[in-house]
């Protein structure tokens, strides 16, 4: 009798998801589906509001990556108003982006995915979390905590507040950086840079070699990639052109406001979330052996699409990465490795920006005037390419909003990786907690941020596994 295994939600990723694994009569995986809850009603809420409110509103969408939404919205507003921020305004925005990246990537590597690697995927659930890590590696944990503090403090200094930033405004940045603040930030950025250098060296020596077999087998799929590059093809997380790389490595580039010419959105009846795909590679198919139209975003994608990285240490790491895994690298767990290269890049980039004399210029914004226009802003969020697309009327009021968030780009690949992981890890109906976690690991590699919907304090969410037969009859149910 065929069975369905349901795992919900995936723990230790942002938001919650339900994984449904459909077994066939022999107890082997027929297919896997990852269902997520999507934030609904946002466009309706925004319509009729002044577009300059968008950078402030969008930080409320997501408590996990507010800076990415904030900056993408500010850039979309720049485009709507037809202005370019002055150099200091642009550089301050990019600096905030790099610091926010460091905070996120450190959190993910050490405390979210880290539990899988530092404590071990088969460890008991009560140990496989952040406190398990603190116990397993207390000195590293303290250092990591210190740098996360520093990143939060740096953003507090730059934005004038700890969370829900409002400092990026249409036309620039509202708070010039004072020379004494610059000095304090330089010292903090240097400490963060030390941890970034340590992290990749530590992972290459102690973490990745131990799990290389897993890296080579878990969740592996073959897809194209998307990311942002500058005019020379170098990695850029704040600004540039979007670049799509097909499976065979061929590239095409386009400006943000032409994304609809290149990206279409497929709909599946079983998922709230759409499935973006590359129009020219279509039709859309998640068939593991013959995928079509599928691309991935986030760290690994960015490492693949760029020609180079314009900071020396990260560039050296990229070269080593490519010597080991080629270009494009396809192994899903390499997202973690790529994340650490990005951590290093951001630490170098933050120091470079802070040492730029122009960054303390008091000229940080230009005046804007409302007009009827369309503006598309994009940044590379830690979790993937983030696109904000606004239209306004002559009074500058919003008439339409479309957002494609990083995780949405990865919707199809996540489903494919889970199917692949499930197929190799569940045989003849046999599975245990360690096997379940390896399937979750395939999802976690993408660092997805799945939902920013309502929350409750009463702890309603927990992981639940239901086993259901082909006719929807519940055969078994347990929480691990």
């Amino acid at each position, binding site marked *: 009798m065929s069975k369905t295994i349901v795992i919900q*939600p995936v*723990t*230790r*990723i*942002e*938001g*919650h998801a339900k994984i449904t694994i459909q077994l066939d009569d022999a107890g082997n995986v027929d297919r896997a589906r990852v269902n997520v809850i999507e*934030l*609904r*009603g*946002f466009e*309706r*809420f925004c319509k009729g509001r002044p577009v300059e409110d968008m950078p402030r509103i969008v*930080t*409320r*969408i*997501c*408590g*996990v990556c*507010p800076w990415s939404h904030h900056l993408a919205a500010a850039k979309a507003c720049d485009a709507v108003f037809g202005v370019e921020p002055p150099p200091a305004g642009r550089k301050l925005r990019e600096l905030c982006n790099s610091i926010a990246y460091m905070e996120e990537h450190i*959190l993910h590597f050490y*405390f979210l995915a880290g539990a899988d690697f530092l404590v071990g995927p088969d460890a008991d*659930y009560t140990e496989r*979390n*952040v*406190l398990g890590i603190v116990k397993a590696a207390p000195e590293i944990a*303290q250092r990591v*905590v*210190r740098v*996360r*503090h*520093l990143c*939060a*403090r740096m953003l*507090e*200094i730059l934005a004038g507040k*700890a*969370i*829900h930033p409002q400092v990026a405004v249409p036309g620039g940045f509202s708070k010039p950086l004072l020379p*004494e*603040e610059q*000095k*304090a930030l330089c010292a*903090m950025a240097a*400490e963060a840079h030390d941890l970034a250098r340590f992290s990749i060296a530590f992972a290459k020596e102690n973490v990745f070699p131990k799990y290389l077999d897993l890296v080579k087998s878990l969740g592996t799929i073959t897809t194209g990639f998307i990311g942002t590059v500058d005019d020379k093809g170098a990695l850029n997380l704040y600004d540039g052109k979007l670049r799509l790389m097909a499976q065979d490595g061929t590239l095409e580039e386009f400006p943000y406001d032409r994304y609809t010419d290149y990206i279409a959105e497929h709909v599946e009846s079983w998922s709230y979330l759409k499935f973006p795909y590359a129009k020219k590679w279509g039709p859309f198919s998640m068939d593991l052996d013959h995928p079509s139209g599928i691309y991935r975003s986030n760290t690994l994608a960015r490492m693949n699409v760029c020609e180079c990285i314009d900071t020396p240490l990260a560039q050296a790491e990229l070269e080593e990465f490519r010597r080991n895994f080629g270009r494009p690298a396809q192994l899903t767990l390499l997202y973690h490795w790529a994340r650490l290269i990005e951590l290093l890049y951001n630490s170098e980039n933050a120091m470079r920006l802070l040492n730029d004399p122009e960054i303390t210029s008091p000229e940080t914004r230009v005046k804007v005037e409302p007009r009827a226009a369309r503006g598309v802003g994009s940044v590379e969020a830690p979790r993937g390419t983030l696109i904000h697309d606004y239209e306004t009327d002559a009074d500058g009021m919003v008439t339409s909003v479309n957002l494609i968030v990083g995780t949405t780009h990865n919707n199809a690949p996540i489903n494919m990786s889970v199917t692949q992981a499930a197929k190799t890890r569940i045989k003849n109906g046999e599975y245990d907690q360690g096997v379940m976690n390896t399937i979750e690991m395939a999802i976690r590699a993408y660092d997805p941020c799945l*939902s*920013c*919907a*309502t*929350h*409750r*304090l*009463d*702890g*309603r*969410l*927990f*992981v639940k596994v239901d086993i259901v037969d082909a006719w929807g009859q519940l055969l078994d149910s347990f*929480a*691990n």
Partner: protein
Amino acid sequence: MEDSGTPEFCRKPVLILGCGNVFFGDDGFGCAAIEYMQSRCEMPEHVCLLDGGTGVRKLLFTLLLSAVRPARLLIIDAVDTGRTPGELVEIRPSELPVKKLDDFAMHEVPSSNLLEELRRSGMEVRILGCQTGPLPDQICPGMCGPVEAAVPKAAEWIAREYFTRL
């Protein structure tokens, strides 16, 4: 400029943390309470008021692992414990249902586990909840009358409990 590199919410002896999603009706109660106090109350030096929105778990995570942290933490949040909408109730961390596997994710604010760990580490942890009405399933900001009316009452309670140094 001397700067310890520790964020303010870790440094002050008292942290009052509002949480919720302002886009979802009564769920925004905690954020509204913080905003109300920030605009109307004179803040004592030892208190940090912070609207954590949907990012509270990340802040708690930082607190849990931080060497420098407040002695007293108050969480203000929307709850559903079957009471009348707008009713304020103090909940102990230990009274929250322990759903073990919602632990240590970032969004689903604030996991009972994180709060319990903070309490075990010696921090005074209290939760002030406000009973919500039905929550919208799509974005729809704005609280119902009774929950809105509970905001000043919550502010009064907080001032009484936390604004005078013990």
